[in-house]
């Protein structure tokens, strides 16, 4: 008895996998961006702001 040819299996999975993989990737990347990059930038800005304030205070 002939069986139906198995076609398109790889293709179907590939689209699903690509979407899930890139979706997770973009999520993780934004996690890094907001959780680490922007946070450390903010810390630096705050430090320089504090420095500037104390400088102004000293001059006054």
């Amino acid at each position, binding site marked *: 008895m002939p069986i139906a040819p198995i076609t398109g299996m790889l293709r179907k999975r590939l689209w699903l996998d690509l979407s899930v*993989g*890139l979706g997770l990737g973009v999520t993780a990347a934004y996690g890094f961006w907001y959780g680490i990059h922007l946070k450390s930038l903010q810390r630096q800005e705050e430090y320089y702001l504090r420095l500037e304030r104390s400088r102004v205070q000293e001059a006054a």
Partner: protein
Amino acid sequence: MLQNFSIFNTIYNDAPQPWQLGFQDSAAPAFTGIVDLHNIIFFYLIVICVGVFWVLGSIMYYFNTKNSPIVHKYLNHGTLIELIWTITPALILTVIAFPSFRLLYLLDEVTSPTITIKVIGHQWYWSYEYSDYVTDSGQSVEFDSYMIPESDLELGQFRLLDVDNKMIIPVDCHIRLIITGADVIHSFAVPSLGVKIDATPGRLNQSSILAERTGTFYGQCSEICGVWHGFMPIAVEAVSVQDYLAWIDSV
């Protein structure tokens, strides 16, 4: 333990820490630019890594020989997919090249420097020449900078990093560096100021630095130059303009 990894703890260290993974804290616009570029590229790196490893894992799980006995049918002659996975990375690399070159040319710019310092690499110490000034005897200000040996270290000094005569610079001033080597190739590198430039004998390399805050910034010779390559550190101390003038008056 986690405190040792500086990506979790941005304290204001200007020397490397034990087990450090991330960058040192920036003290100059140049280094802030470098860290920014690194993090922008790192963003895409995360997307690509997670994407690739996810697909790879899925293929190993669903299409191993046990689950899919005829999988070798797809092993070669996949022209379309090969075109896709060759052209896509090429495009990504091209896109990354633009901000990278922009930063590179920005760093190369020397904006009207306040002072010029000549940095000379020797086997195995650095020497600095402040050619804008002359001493009472008519000679230019110059001095050698040797590492402090472990036996002479005082409390609070860094092993293999602290030197007897630091290079002193005024804060918030553009400084031009002229870098050369006296014997073999060395490399003058200070991470928090964003400089790393070869000190090549017979050649004058130019770079510029700007310290945005006072402090001592440490670096090391970064071109293997002989047995004591690891023992010729660089220490740059940024001080206020008044303190700088007082210091240059005293040498």
